[in-house]
């Protein structure tokens, strides 16, 4: 495992988006290495993002409405972590806290061991709606994150085009977003996040607006790209199968005020194929998670009736 350690250390330095020509090569090696390691515990890889005891309430001082009630979780370097929970469990609020748009009332948010609570500009982000700028061509949209982080558009274009090709967007470099299908727009939004110089990617229910078929296509595509790049990912979804297919670790959130109900390590080896969805192990995990979610949904609904 020592070699794996070194590898992930290096990957953190010249990760994709670092702008160095080595990044593509090291990404390739990482994927090759990952194929033989089953990644069960991964307790030896350093922690990228850590939330401990995060609380957040809205409303007035006298009548606070607690939304996040003590969430603690970890994303290790190169780990794909999913958050699932009933609707209204404050998943978006949690992202706003990590993104620095909101200050936590209590608790700590640390990136690479350093507190980033209330600080912006440390993460790559992909929102639920693609949020591509309609007046920018696709390639200019894809370069936007880098541009905001200080890299001139021109310097990004070559790499942007390479990744756009991987996303099936070749030939659409000069097109405007409104001419693309929903799935293509989401892929462009993903490439935009992928090119960010920030290693940690926060994906906020990125496929929820897509139809079922496009969605499963996008999952397979994302799985493929992610296994190649091995970025640290925090992925919010309410789709259980999606979480099981993609993640190394799943955190199940409770209804409001949300806390972590369960932490599940997904045992399937990488690279994964969609076929694992038919294995008995997968089905058992899915049943367990579905039961947990149903219970939570029911509780939070009766909770709203009481108040």
């Amino acid at each position, binding site marked *: 495992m020592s070699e794996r350690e070194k590898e992930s250390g290096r990957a953190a330095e010249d990760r994709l988006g670092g702008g160095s020509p080595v990044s593509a090569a090291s990404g390739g090696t990482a994927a090759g290495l990952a194929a033989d390691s089953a990644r069960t515990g991964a307790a030896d890889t350093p922690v990228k993002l850590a939330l401990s005891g995060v609380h957040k309430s809205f409303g007035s001082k006298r009548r606070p409405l607690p939304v996040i009630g003590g969430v603690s979780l970890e994303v290790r370097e190169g780990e794909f972590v999913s958050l699932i929970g009933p609707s209204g469990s404050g998943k978006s609020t949690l*992202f*706003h806290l990590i*993104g*620095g*748009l909101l200050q936590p009332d209590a608790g700590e948010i640390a990136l690479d061991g350093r507190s980033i609570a209330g600080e*912006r*500009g*440390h*993460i*790559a*982000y992909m*929102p*639920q*709606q693609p*949020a591509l*700028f*309609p*007046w*920018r061509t696709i390639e200019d949209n894809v370069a*936007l*994150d880098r*541009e*905001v*982080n200080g890299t001139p558009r021109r310097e990004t274009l070559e790499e942007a085009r390479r990744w756009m090709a991987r996303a099936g967007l070749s030939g659409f470099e000069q097109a*405007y*977003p*409104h*001419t693309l299908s929903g799935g293509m727009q989401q892929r462009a939004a993903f490439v935009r996040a992928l090119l*960010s110089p920030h290693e940690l990617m*926060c994906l906020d229910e990125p496929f929820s607006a897509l139809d079922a078929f496009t969605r499963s296509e996008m999952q397979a595509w994302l799985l493929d790209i992610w296994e190649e790049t091995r970025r640290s990912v925090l992925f919010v979804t309410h789709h259980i199968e999606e979480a099981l297919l993609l993640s190394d670790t799943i955190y199940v959130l409770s209804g409001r005020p949300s806390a972590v109900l369960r932490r599940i390590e997904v045992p399937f080896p990488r690279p994964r194929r969609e076929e694992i969805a038919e294995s008995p192990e997968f089905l058992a995990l899915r049943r367990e998670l579905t039961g947990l979610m149903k219970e939570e949904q029911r509780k939070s609904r009766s909770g709203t009736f009481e108040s």
Partner: protein
Amino acid sequence: MSLRSTLAQWFRSAWPPFVAVLLFLALWESAVRFFAIEAWILPSPSIIAGEAARSADSLRMHTLSTLKLTLIGFAIGSAFGLLVACLLHLVPLLRSALYPLLILSQNVPTIALAPLLMIWFGFGLLPKIIVITLVCFFPVAVSTMDGFAQTDRTMLNYMRMIGAKRGQIFRKLEFPHALPSLFSGLRIAATYSVMGAVIAEWIGAQKGIGYYMILQKSAFRTDRIFAAIVIIVALSLLLFLLVTLIERLVVRGGRRSGNAEGGETK
């Protein structure tokens, strides 16, 4: 959309009103002849056209003078409106203090200020430019601020999440997002500015289409007044088309203010 298909589409939608205008002119012509209406009350289109051709030189001189005045006033007024909109948007305190006053101030008919401006600034170019500036300022400022306020929430949220600074959000998101709104303001201002120029010339000028109209009014030259009106309409239309053309060049991505959202889905 290519230029060619734009032209074809324009032609298709333009010919019915064009035929309607021709019919109207024919009706006018024959009515004037049939009822033998005197030319100082209602001249026929042919008389107006003939007179316009005869006094082409003097009309051209007056038209150019008005056009110059209009363009200067339009440019200054629009620039000022845009500047104020940006300033009020970027400084919330300023906006909450001044925006209501801005709306209230529009109840003062700008045209009514013209005589006052003449007294203060004389009969030169300056008071006329001030009138046009005042007339253009408001639509540009208000629609641009509207555009800023309507910035897409998801895009704004995205920019914040990736750590964009205030200036970056303004330059890369809010300003380009407000461009179609700015242009609808400019279109209104373009028509207003011609009107402002003509009225300013009525009140006091030595040349210009407005001055020409006043002159012909005292001589009861109805035909020449009609010619002047046609020129004013043409000027308004010209400026309107100019703004539309610039918008076509500047606003990208199929979201022009004319054909609103989703007009060009392919």
